[in-house]
């Protein structure tokens, strides 16, 4: 089922750490707006679809037991109860991914299935992943590239994913919580037998984003030649695997966690997606 580049392309958006449920996730709408705006500014008309891969409900089901305990512990203290529920929600999402729990495997399987579904429809697909979502996206890409079914050298029609865009990714962090290594370094799998094509990975980050830098109060990191923490950690591996990893340090007039959520309004991301889909 080779990709037919004349068909309507799909952008699949993988969200990051979230509070709330799948219905609260607005990432798909925001990416749609960025692409629409980029096309409109250049007086272009293109047909495309933006789909979201949502996994917050999967995480919430896994955390139900801990939420129940939390509610019992904070009975009669609603403010404390809400704060604890939020901590369980956010912290639990990260621990699931880091510990490669059954929940994490279920999420990866769901993402892999969403990608393969687009491939069966012969549609070009670009993956956009924010924050923790970038960990799942990179892991699933590796799983797909390891099989013999996809990514056959220079024939991009055999590539279920044409490129990856990550936003505010913590993949450059090498931290531990006790014995648990959070964001363990993932293997970068080469595209077998490609002489001219490279797998493009565009990583957008803000120097003030604490999720990117690991700096609690968001003091800025230094960047040279577009290389931030992700590029420093993965650059050698992606070069060896004939990927094209490019770091994009962006600004937003925001700092700390406000910088972490400002990517959704950055017009340059819409421009990059337009380039990847129709350039």
């Amino acid at each position, binding site marked *: 089922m080779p990709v037919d580049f004349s068909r309507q392309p799909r952008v699949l958006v993988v969200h990051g750490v979230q509070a709330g449920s799948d219905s609260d996730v607005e990432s798909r709408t925001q990416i749609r707006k960025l692409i629409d*705006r*980029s096309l409109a*500014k*250049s*007086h*272009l008309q293109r047909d495309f679809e933006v789909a979201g891969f949502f996994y917050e409900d999967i995480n919430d089901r896994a955390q139900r037991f801990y939420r129940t305990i939390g509610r019992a512990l904070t009975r*009669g*203290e609603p*403010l*404390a109860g809400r*704060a604890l529920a939020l901590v369980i929600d956010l912290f639990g999402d990260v621990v699931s991914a880091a510990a490669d729990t059954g929940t994490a495997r279920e999420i990866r399987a769901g993402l892999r299935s969403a990608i393969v579904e687009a491939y069966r429809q012969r549609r070009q697909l670009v993956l956009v992943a924010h924050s923790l979502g970038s960990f799942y996206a990179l892991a699933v890409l590796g799983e797909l590239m390891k099989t013999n079914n996809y990514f056959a050298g220079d024939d*991009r029609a055999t590539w279920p994913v044409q490129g990856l865009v990550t936003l505010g990714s913590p993949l450059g962090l090498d931290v531990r919580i006790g014995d648990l290594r959070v964001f363990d370094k993932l293997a970068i799998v080469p595209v077998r037998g490609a*002489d*001219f*094509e*490279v797998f*493009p990975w565009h990583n957008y980050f803000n*120097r*003030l984003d604490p999720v990117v830098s690991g700096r609690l*109060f*968001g*003091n*800025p990191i230094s*960047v*040279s*030649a*577009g290389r931030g923490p992700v590029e420093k950690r993965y650059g050698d591996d992606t070069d060896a695997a*004939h990927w*094209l990893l*490019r*770091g*994009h*340090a*962006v*600004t*937003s*007039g*925001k*700092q*700390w*966690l*406000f910088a972490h959520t400002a990517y959704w*309004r950055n*017009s*340059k991301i819409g*421009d*990059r997606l*337009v*380039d990847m*889909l*129709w*350039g």
Partner: protein
Amino acid sequence: MGLKLRYARPARAAVAAAVLALALAGCSPTSYRYQARGTLALPAGDAGAVLYWRGDEGRLWYGKAYARPDSGAVLRVCGEPSLVFVAGDGDTLRLDSGSGDTVVGEIRDAAGVATVDPPRRVRAGALCGVVRAGGVPVATGALTEGVQPELVFLCANARRPQRYPAPGAYLFAAVSKSVAREGGDPEPCPAR
């Protein structure tokens, strides 16, 4: 009295968190937009274009002065998908080749681009363009107000002839700077 004690500590924590969040939100640098306009010679005819990027200037929440630009810049072209310049060695701006691109020009000196004949097919990620000022490749940080960037293009694509302008150097108008607002990013097409 019991209610006061029960809610006092979490309420104080919530207020402290709210004050910190307000400080982080309010004491932020200002976002500026930088842009330079020009015209490119595409195979189907001349097209308006605008090179743009952003930068933060101001102070961080703890008072430290802070000024940083985006590492890359976007070239919006009237009627065509954008081209994205990224930071390369020395932070200088470069344009990566894409799928199916061939190199048809090479930079000989500050003045000219020489033809490469026959065109050479390159792996994606090869050099297809640079941004210069005063004949020298530059980073976004060097493209301050009043500086005229020169965009140099070196590639072509047989499957997508409109992807690149004719190889050569294009001198754009001087960089202008304004406070960035959401949705206010530039249109490359001339005003009707």
